[in-house]
């Protein structure tokens, strides 16, 4: 089982250093999330500053960028990292695509399917020099002249992961992708009973039953060295879980456990601006399904125990910040157990 960290990079002049620190800890991968900052710029630094760790996006938002640009970004980073780059993509949700990015949102599964097919077609053309042809409802490519082609290079098999919580994306991943970023908001039961069968169905549809799909997830963890720290960590995790639980897209996870009554209760609190109290609706019993609760030195073992055979790559839900002393013991314990 691989152990990764997630970074929300906000200082490009420190990106190399952070990447090197991840590698020095002995961890396996560094994921950059796309929120307030571009996720590819820090990876350019990380590619050149490291030699061993996997580097990727978890996730980069697909639709606001032409597949051609995404393909070039990935090609460049795959080359600079000598094949350690993983392109992790996400659809985001409709309001953000249309109102924050002012980009097109059609039927997201079909659009993402064509997006991925376009990436494969473009990389094939980069690799072989064959004319670029890819047609669909959302994307059509028919031109690529020599001046605009990057050179062929050794690391042309670039893995694509997609991120999601529902079965549609899981099936698509099984059919077309190399990996899946399981949403932190999941339970092992959901993973086993809902997602794994969906991956398999996708693999069958794509006639690639034996394909290895790498499953990755940043796990909610509750941990600390003092009572106060643990309590704070618990409230934070419960708040994060409550936030996702109130979102319609994630209702299937709750439905599996019969907890769907939580949804209207959480939304009622939201409407009354009681965000700070939402965590009170998540019981300790419920928490155990969504998060791993343990002191720092036991935490990585408990995570491994829970997800052995289920996930290939794990991380923790909070970002890796090497200068945060309060978290250092957690990273050191993880390094000891997993690296």
């Amino acid at each position, binding site marked *: 089982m691989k152990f990764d960290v997630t970074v929300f990079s*906000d*200082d*490009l*002049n420190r990106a*190399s250093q952070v990447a090197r620190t991840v590698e020095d800890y002995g961890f396996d991968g560094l994921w950059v999330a796309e*929120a*307030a*900052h*571009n996720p*590819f*710029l820090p990876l*350019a*630094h990380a*590619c*050149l500053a490291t030699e061993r760790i996997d580097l990727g996006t978890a996730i980069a938002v697909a639709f*606001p*960028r*032409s*597949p*051609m*640009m995404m393909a*070039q*970004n990935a090609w*460049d980073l795959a*080359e*600079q990292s000598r094949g350690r780059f993983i392109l992790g993509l996400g659809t985001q949700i409709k*309001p*953000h695509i*249309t*109102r*924050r*990015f*002012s*980009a097109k949102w059609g039927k997201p599964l079909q659009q993402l399917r064509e997006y991925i097919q*376009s990436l494969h077609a473009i990389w094939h053309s980069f690799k072989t020099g064959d004319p*670029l042809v890819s047609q669909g409802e959302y*994307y*059509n*490519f*028919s*031109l*690529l002249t020599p*001046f*605009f*082609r*990057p*050179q062929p*290079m050794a690391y042309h098999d670039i893995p694509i992961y997609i991120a999601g919580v529902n079965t549609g994306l899981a099936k698509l991943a099984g059919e077309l992708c190399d990996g899946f970023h399981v949403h932190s908001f999941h339970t092992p039961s959901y993973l086993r009973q809902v997602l794994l069968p969906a991956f398999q169905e996708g693999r069958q549809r794509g006639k690639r039953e034996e394909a290895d799909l790498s499953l990755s997830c940043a796990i909610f963890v509750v941990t600390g060295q003092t009572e106060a720290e643990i309590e704070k960590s618990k409230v934070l995790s419960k708040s994060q879980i409550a936030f996702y639980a109130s979102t319609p897209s994630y209702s299937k996870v709750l439905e599996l456990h019969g907890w769907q009554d939580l949804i209207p209760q959480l939304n009622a609190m939201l409407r009354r601006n009681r965000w700070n109290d939402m965590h009170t609706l998540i019981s300790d019993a419920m928490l155990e399904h969504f998060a791993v609760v343990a002191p720092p030195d036991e935490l990585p073992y408990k995570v491994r125990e829970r997800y052995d055979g289920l996930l290939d790559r794990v991380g923790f839900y909070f970002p890796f910040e090497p200068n945060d002393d309060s978290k250092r013991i957690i990273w050191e314990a993880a390094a000891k157990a997993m690296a």
Partner: protein
Amino acid sequence: MKFDMTFLPSSDLSADARQIQQAEALGFDGAWSAEVAHNPFFSLTLAAKATRSIQIGTQIAVAFPRSPMVSAQIAWDLAQQSGGRFTLGLGTQVSAHIIRRFSEAWTDPIGRMREYIEGIRAIWDTFQNGSRLRYRGVHYQFRLMSPFFNPGPIEHPDIPIYIAGVNPRMCRLAGEICQGLHVHGFHTLPYLKEVIRPQIEQGLSASGRRRSDFAVTVPVFVVSGRTPEETRAAENEVRMRIAFYASTPAYQRVMAHHGWDDIRIRLSRMARAGKWDEMSAAVSDEMLNEFAIVAAPEEVAASIRQRYDGLADRICLAWQAQDSGLMEMIAQNIKK
């Protein structure tokens, strides 16, 4: 007059960044990357870390295949990282490439570019001042932002935007709403004076700005060399470039301005027939001298100044990656 260098990002990102460091050491004022076969920003972020004073920017990044939000965030990150040395240079590319290579729509490029830039500025205002994001155009609408997606204020928020202009209306748009215009390398002095300059002035006038508020960057084709062989090679390369541009419809206005339509038609026919080698020969010496600076290395800077004085604020020279010796010679004479 500032002297910059331009380069095409390569498969060797470290080398690209080193080139920019070298340019800074030689005294170049700026370095511009072009978006062709590679991401144009990767080399700039690496260079930003390794340099102190040189201006960095794109000449150009293709606008439409990226949401303005994506471009706005990239520029914000690079402006912060470089301490305010980044310029966002955008271009429309041409319709065939936008539609068939990027799978992007091509409608009303001038109107869309205007909104692209206005959208970016609205977004930057939200980043810097926390203002409510509310931009409503025909092509773009931005009406959603939350703290999680907002990078917050930076020390140098006034990021210059330049656009590339071939079409006179695009030059006018630049004068109206941008901080600069990237003139295309395929230009002549008369075209710059008689077609481009008036458009810039009209644009500036429309927005009540002065010429000093604006930067005209001009890439210059240079035929020069330390040996006859080097000069001959440079001349062949420049002739090929001129022949290529002269044969394409996108740049026909320049040819028409000089009454060279018949040459354009002949070159176009040769291009369609794949007769690339014959095309260079069809470029007359008169054309070569109009489109390029032909001078000994120590004379290049002075010849450029003489031609472009009062017209260009920044001159861009294509960086000779294979051998920076020539760049050094030219650079030495820039300082003089």
